[in-house]
């Protein structure tokens, strides 16, 4: 009998738990440890943030589902890792603290045979002074509660515009090394469309602010893509959309301080500037959770498990951008020291960024961190689950399932406006996610045809269809496993 503990119940943790439970017999224990009450389908937060979808539509409680499916569930947060156990406990364990109910505040040693760390990122708002969701007129759409607040803030500004007051709207990244430009891109297009629907578009100045060097970088160094019968750069496609919608842009901007209605930033020229606004949605930087790890004698071994995020089978040797290789990226998400620990999704430490690192003239790093969206999070979680299942069934370590982001496709269906007949979406796929300049030297490291973009109403339908399909899958309804990650 094996005991598999999964930390986190986001896309990655939930996918791993559901596949493990489906494929392993009941003699094996599958336990999820998460401080969250609900599962949330994060990609639809965009629509919550414009008031077109209630947050209840994108979430469901975890406890009843896990009870029904025979998955253990501890509503607790992980505090520290003991991969060798300690003087009193022979088995490896994670120290967790319950966050709710009768056991609130109690700590428990959660022992395991296999550990999947799917804790995702910490939303590091503190890294930018004054960037607090719901304060200083800044908002976030990173969680459903943030998105609810964002809609309240946006609606207030829309009502002011209806009363005749002009407004400035600023959307993008809130730190020099933020990622998730795609989410901000979706949000700015949705907000712009909402302003038109409310007949106040002419009252608003809408501005994109980002740490990207070029538009359409998305933390992936941009893309060369098929667009209809043409081949165009993602920067050209985004520029076309922004110009068409009268959205201004500020690039190479490392936002470092927020005051009430003012965003201060440094640009790549080393200039310190500011931008005023009446409503801002700025994505924070992501960081690890600051977990500590100890050996059986309680010596600190954090560096064996964490480099901010969790250390896995990536090549972390520091090297210049020109020497980066697709082979640097992990394939199995296994910790090299403790082979029974895995970190799929956003929890693993990337070997480096995907976008070219750039410094301002005064030495500040200003470039996007690598994005890891829902699709690769799901795929990597499933392959980790499959390797654990094989290892248990074969009685020896099996790592035959591999999935490097350098040999994996991803789709980003960016909503560009909500509405069954008036909606729009920018559908982008990329293969591979991390460019492979050896395989595709003439097309910026990616395969044309499999890397393409489309704009139109079908994109909105597609995003809506994915919303329903993935919530169905997450609820583990009949034949849920037929829906791919």
């Amino acid at each position, binding site marked *: 009998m094996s005991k598999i503990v999964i930390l986190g119940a986001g896309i990655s943790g939930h996918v791993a738990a559901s596949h493990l439970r489906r494929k392993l017999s009941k003699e094996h224990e599958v336990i999820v440890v998460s401080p969250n009450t609900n599962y949330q389908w994060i990609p639809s937060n965009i629509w919550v943030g414009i008031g077109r979808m209630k947050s209840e539509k994108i979430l469901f409680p975890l406890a009843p589902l896990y009870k029904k499916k025979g998955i253990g569930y501890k509503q607790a947060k992980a505090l520290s890792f003991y991969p060798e156990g300690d003087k009193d406990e022979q088995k490896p364990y994670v120290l967790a603290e319950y966050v709710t109910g009768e056991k609130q505040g109690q700590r428990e040693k959660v022992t395991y045979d296999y550990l999947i760390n799917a804790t995702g990122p910490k939303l590091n708002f503190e890294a930018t002074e004054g960037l607090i969701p719901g304060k200083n007129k800044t908002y976030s759409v990173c969680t459903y509660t943030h998105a609810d607040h964002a809609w309240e803030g946006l609606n207030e500004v829309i009502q002011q515009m209806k009363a005749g007051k002009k407004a400035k709207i600023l959307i993008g990244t809130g730190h020099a090394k933020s990622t998730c430009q795609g989410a901000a891109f979706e949000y700015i297009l949705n907000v712009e469309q909402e302003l038109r629907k409310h007949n106040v578009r002419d009252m608003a100045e809408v501005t994109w602010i980002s740490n990207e060097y070029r538009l359409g970088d998305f933390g992936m160094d941009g893309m060369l893509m098929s667009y209809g019968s043409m081949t165009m750069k993602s920067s050209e496609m985004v520029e076309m959309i922004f110009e068409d919608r009268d959205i201004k842009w500020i690039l190479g901007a490392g936002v470092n301080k927020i005051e009430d209605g003012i965003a201060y930033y440094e640009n790549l020229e080393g200039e310190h500037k500011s931008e005023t606004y009446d409503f801002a949605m700025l994505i924070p930087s992501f960081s690890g959770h600051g977990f500590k790890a100890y050996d059986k004698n309680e010596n600190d071994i954090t560096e064996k498990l964490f480099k901010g995020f969790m250390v896995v089978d990536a090549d972390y040797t520091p090297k210049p951008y020109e020497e980066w290789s697709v082979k640097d990226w992990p394939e199995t998400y296994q910790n090299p020291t403790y082979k029974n620990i895995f970190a799929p999704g956003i929890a693993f430490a990337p070997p480096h960024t995907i976008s070219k690192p750039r410094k301002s003239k005064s030495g500040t790093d200003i470039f996007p961190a690598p994005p890891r969206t829902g699709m690769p999070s799901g795929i990597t979680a499933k392959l980790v689950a499959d390797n654990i299942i094989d290892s248990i069934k074969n009685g020896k370590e099996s790592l035959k399932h591999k999935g*490097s982001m350098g*040999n994996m496709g991803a789709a980003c269906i960016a909503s560009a406006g909500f509405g069954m007949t008036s909606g729009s979406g920018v559908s982008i796929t990329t293969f591979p996610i991390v460019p492979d300049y050896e395989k595709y030297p003439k097309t910026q490291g990616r395969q044309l045809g499999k890397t393409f973009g489309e704009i139109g109403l079908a994109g909105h339908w597609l995003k809506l269809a994915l919303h329903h399909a993935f919530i169905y899958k997450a609820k583990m309804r009949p034949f849920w496993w037929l829906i791919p990650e």
Partner: protein
Amino acid sequence: MTQRISKYQRFKMMNPIIQFFKFIYLSIKIMIVVAGGHGGTRKVN
């Protein structure tokens, strides 16, 4: 505002009939890209 998308392009982007077929096409194409397999990048000795 600079009109970068022509009226004809916009018509095609927003026409429900054209977009219905585009929806089918995109669904299949995306499925091929993302469910078409994944693997490692390092050679095994």
